[in-house]
């Protein structure tokens, strides 16, 4: 019963988001900076090959692009309220669960398109510079799925759910502050979540599943750690959406 409305919501949200110039402008801009920094990373591909360079590039993509990803998703839910189309949407066949999940899936998938494009450009640069096309192609999808995707889904779920209760600029500020504090700051500087399972930047999965990686070679995460980190991120993403749905329903009753 809900499959057809879900497909419709996902597709509509996908098209709305993928057609926004802001999505391409911000993510491709950040992508150019990421590709530029790729040229500065001291890859020793002859010694380590694509086993190291592909996951390292996946991590570089995950360093700053999720900030743009989250910021660009944050206004999706409040937009319906700002345009005063909430009551109209409630009269449509899709339930509020379908609408929220469809918004998350469609908008997140559309915002993933430029991220994936940036990832592919970096891979092309790696192949053009170092060769090793087959190994790079074989590692490209696993690295993206294990290092990037869980964190991006985590960021996407919170960026859809949190602005249901928080003003968008406040959420954007808290989100970028969290990203810097909880993913990039070294644990020696301040108390932080960096280098724990709960890091959507993907460092745990990178080290756990791609042991040849150069990044944080001193960290010794096992594949169990990597799987636990991914499971925890996806679980929290689901919890954020459920909490967002409950709050949205409560808000509708109060309206």
């Amino acid at each position, binding site marked *: 019963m809900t499959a057809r409305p879900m497909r419709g919501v996902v597709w509509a949200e996908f098209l709305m988001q993928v057609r*926004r110039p802001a999505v391409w402008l911000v993510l491709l801009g950040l992508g150019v900076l990421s590709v530029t920094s790729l040229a500065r990373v001291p890859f020793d591909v002859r010694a380590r090959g694509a086993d190291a360079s592909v996951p390292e590039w996946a991590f570089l993509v995950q360093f700053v692009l999720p900030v743009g990803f989250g910021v660009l998703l944050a*206004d999706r839910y409040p937009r319906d309220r700002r345009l005063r189309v909430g009551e109209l949407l409630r009269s449509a066949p899709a339930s509020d669960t379908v609408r929220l999940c469809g918004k998350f899936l469609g908008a997140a998938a559309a915002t993933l398109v430029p991220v994936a494009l940036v990832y592919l450009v970096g891979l092309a640069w790696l192949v053009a510079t170092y060769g090793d096309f087959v190994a790079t192609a074989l590692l490209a999808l696993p690295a993206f799925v294990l290092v990037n995707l869980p964190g991006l889904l985590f960021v996407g779920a919170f960026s859809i759910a949190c602005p249901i209760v928080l003003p968008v600029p406040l959420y954007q500020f808290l989100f970028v502050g969290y990203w810097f504090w909880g993913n990039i700051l070294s644990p020696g500087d301040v108390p932080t979540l960096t280098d724990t399972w709960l890091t959507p930047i993907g460092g745990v999965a990178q080290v756990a599943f791609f042991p040849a990686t150069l990044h944080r070679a001193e960290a010794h995460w096992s594949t169990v750690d990597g799987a636990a980190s991914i499971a925890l991120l996806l679980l929290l993403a689901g919890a954020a959406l459920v909490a967002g749905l409950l709050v949205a329903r409560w808000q509708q009753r109060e309206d």
Partner: protein
Amino acid sequence: MTIRWRVRLELALVGPAALIAPGLVLLAFAGLGLLSGRPARLLTAGLETGVPLAAGLAGAALLADERALELQLSLPGGFRSAARWRLGLLAGAAALASLVGWGLASAAGLLAAWLPAVSPVVAQLTWLAPLALLGLAGPLLALVLRSRAAAAGVLTGGWLLAHALHDVALGTPALRAWFPFLTTYDPIAPDWLATRLVVLALGIGAGLLLGSLLRDGEWLLRSEDAP
């Protein structure tokens, strides 16, 4: 319309969240500083990087969230007058929070370990220069890019990169000259004052450009956030 009435009206439209956010940001940085045992550096980071980012994001949203934009544009002076009032009040709240935060932290001796080697008055450029730059760059980007989300993306992405790649920025003369967060990483740098003045000048330039763009209300009507 009296000034007092206008101030009350615009304060209500800016909203309490945007007005108290700078103070809360400083409290959060102070708490993190006390937890880490490095309150001077974290408070400086709050003043120099946290409050300006909050002001920039709030400023971008203020310009984009005007629901009576067409009505505003039909009035003498257009939207420019209201935008000036709101951005001015926002900047005033951020400046007040920074001054009070600086004063309280100095009185408690919390800032002494991370102060620039200049007089206390000149040292206020620590927060004033980046506040001018980021606080005005946010609304300027929202206007130029015709999107609040794009402005927020550029502002937050740039903020994060400035922190994450500060070593590269500080080692590259062309970037160091206008690096907005120098005090957080090198408070006793010999070129501290010169770079603060460059950052302040860039902020003033952004403000002048913003003022001239606000004369043309059509920019706002073509925004993706337009009502």
